[in-house]
């Protein structure tokens, strides 16, 4: 189906199902219970899972296949966001033109930066991309303020022209929509104390994410994908056979830049604001971490990594002492206080600490990333099945020696 073999079709269908039922899956705990704190099924976070999933999938096309580690991908995300918000300001609140422009401008940016940066490889390439992204960030924050609105970030205003939308006299800002269907509209259903929120914005992101995933799957399986893998394993030998690898790597770079731009455009569509810090090196570093954490070179890994990091950022940072006391209140006073004191450094303002420790634990014990953890768990349950029938047919954890030459 869809040009995929049977195993891949099954894989894609699983992904589709997981994505469609996300609002239910992420809401496992009943409202009002202490564990409801861990529920993640609210629109903003679900949208972020999908959007950063797209970002990481795109990054993985470059890094996972060719091995070129870009440290400046956030620049494309930022460019995409700015383009989309400008479209909302000037043309229409319909998200389609905004997203199209986001993809197009980030593609152009990626072409320019990629053309220059791909002249070098290895760490030199990484630093070149980093330098371009940092220049974009610094300029967006200061000199380019007329375009980017600097620190405050580009926002909508009441007196924006919005040519296609007609005059707005309502005194409140319009919302992003797709042909009239507002991105922020949702339906809530309560089942057994669990509130499921079905949000238009999330499903819009989810459908695009599935398309993005499908495209990435096709690229992984295509001759083009094979070419990119050849670049990773031995570029020199490839060149000796008379093949010029540059067009292939440049194509991968542009595609992955467009994925980032798409993610940026979607971010702006869900929440019409574009801030310069989206382009900072920390943001570029984040997508690198997402990809490695999940499992670079695998199809599903980067998405898992993105979800993992966003979950910690949004859920763990909100656990404060009052919440902790709520959890442990059933215990005797002394024990309750002791537990709160013990857990306290790892949640709330300490969420960075937990994330740092988990990074280390994952990379030490699961060399293939989170996806390997998933496989190990899956293997426990279905020992009988053959080894290659795992969730992600792409992944072959192997250790590449990288000693100092």
């Amino acid at each position: 189906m869809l040009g995929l073999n049977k195993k891949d079709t099954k894989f894609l269908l699983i992904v589709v199902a997981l994505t469609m039922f996300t609002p239910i899956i992420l809401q496992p705990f009943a409202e009002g219970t202490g564990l409801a704190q861990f529920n993640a099924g609210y629109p903003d976070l679900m949208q972020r899972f999908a959007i950063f999933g797209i970002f990481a999938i795109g990054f993985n096309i470059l890094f996972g296949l060719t091995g070129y580690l870009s440290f400046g991908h956030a620049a494309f995300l930022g460019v995409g966001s700015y383009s989309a918000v400008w479209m909302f300001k000037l043309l229409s609140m319909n998200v389609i033109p905004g997203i199209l422009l986001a993809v197009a401008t980030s593609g152009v940016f990626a072409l320019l930066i990629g053309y220059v940066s791909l002249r070098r490889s290895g760490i030199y390439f990484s630093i070149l991309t980093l330098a371009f992204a940092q220049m974009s960030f610094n300029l967006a924050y200061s000199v380019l303020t007329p375009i980017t609105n600097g620190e405050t970030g580009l926002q909508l205003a009441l007196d924006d022209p919005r040519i296609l939308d007609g005059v707005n006299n309502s005194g409140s800002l319009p919302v992003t929509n797709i042909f009239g269907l507002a991105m922020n509209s949702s339906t809530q259903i309560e089942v057994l104390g669990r509130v499921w929120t079905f949000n238009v914005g999330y499903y819009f992101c989810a459908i695009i994410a599935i398309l993005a995933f499908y495209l990435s799957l096709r690229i992984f399986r295509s001759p083009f994908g094979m070419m990119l893998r050849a670049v990773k394993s031995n570029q020199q030998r490839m060149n000796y056979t008379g093949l010029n690898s540059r067009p292939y790597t440049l194509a991968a770079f542009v595609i992955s830049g467009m994925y980032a731009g798409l993610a940026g455009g979607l971010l702006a569509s869900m929440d019409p604001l574009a801030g310069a810090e989206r382009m900072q090196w920390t943001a570029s570093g984040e997508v690198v971490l997402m990809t490695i954490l999940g499992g670079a070179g695998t199809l599903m890994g980067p998405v898992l990594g993105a979800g993992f990091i966003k979950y910690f950022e949004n859920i763990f940072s909100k656990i404060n002492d009052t919440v902790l006391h709520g959890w442990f209140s059933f215990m005797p006073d002394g024990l309750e206080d002791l537990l709160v004191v013990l857990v306290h450094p790892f949640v709330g303002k300490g969420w960075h600490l937990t994330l740092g420790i988990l990074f280390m634990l994952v990379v030490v014990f699961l060399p293939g990333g989170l996806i390997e953890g998933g496989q190990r768990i899956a293997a426990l349950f279905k020992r009988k099945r053959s080894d290659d029938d795992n969730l992600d047919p792409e992944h072959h954890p192997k250790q590449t020696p990288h000693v100092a030459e």
Partner: protein
Amino acid sequence: MDAILLQILNGLDKGSAYALIALGLTLIFGTLGVVNFAHGALFMIGAFCAVTLQRILSLSFETIDESRTDFLGNPLKVETPYVEAWFGPDVGMAIIDWSVPLAIFFAIPVMITIGFIMERGLIKHFYKRPHADQILVTFGLAIVLQEIVKYFFGANPIPTPAPDVFRGSFDFGVLLGFDPYAIAYPYWRLVYFFFSVTIIGAVFAFLQFTTFGMVVRAGMADRETVGLLGINIDRRFTIMFGIAAAVAGLAGVMYAPINSPNYHMGMDFLVLSFVVVVVGGMGSLPGAVLAGFMLGILESISSMNEVKAIFPGIDQIIIYLVAILILLTRPRGLMGRKGVMED
């Protein structure tokens, strides 16, 4: 003219910090082949060694002064440092005043120990892993180290002044025939510059003129062959890691009076130090030092009003712009070796 001379002087000073950090980083990154994202954290820990020693020296006991009250109206608790009680107020004050230079002796063993633990406990297992894994594990480590420091010291910068005798500026202008104060430079920054030059010189001498250094250099060039010769290169690499950590730490200790240390100061320097190392060229110690000074001077000059008037915002991007230009004209940075981290 005097303005440019002043900025060159300032650039040398800025550059000495970059060079020192890049030197430590390139020992680990350019030679051991480990992408060490925790290097900035080592610099930060160095600065906090100075803060810690200052705290230790100012450890105080409380006496209650009934005649005065605190902001809530309770009797005021007066704190007297132990050193003042033991050695008398004058000597005690002097010891606290000199806590930053004293911290050098405190930081060396601490940093070497941290370096050893890091290498033996963690990095050792990652020599053969992909760079991506090294990034993830050292980034995680950097976050953990940062958060630990934040837990104990808070997020705000902590003032760590230099000894009183280093207050004020030295007037170079008069020596060169300019107006008084045309080129005046703070004493402590000059101390920092000479300190960096000394450390850089010491590291080079150590690698160049000792047998140990020779073996390490051989190991950098071809680890396997050195191993085959029956030399325990791993142990030496551990020691090199300790030295690199100590260099980063010392850079941090002496930097504490220039800018009050805070827990994320390492991250501020991290990206910059990678740029410096790569511009200098992978695997080249002189390259890292040269790039550090060069970028420092360019950064200083680009922040002059006259330059900014021609190129608005140039001071925001100069380092990255120069990095791009150099990497495009010189494929391996200023003095990089072929084949190091190019795949």
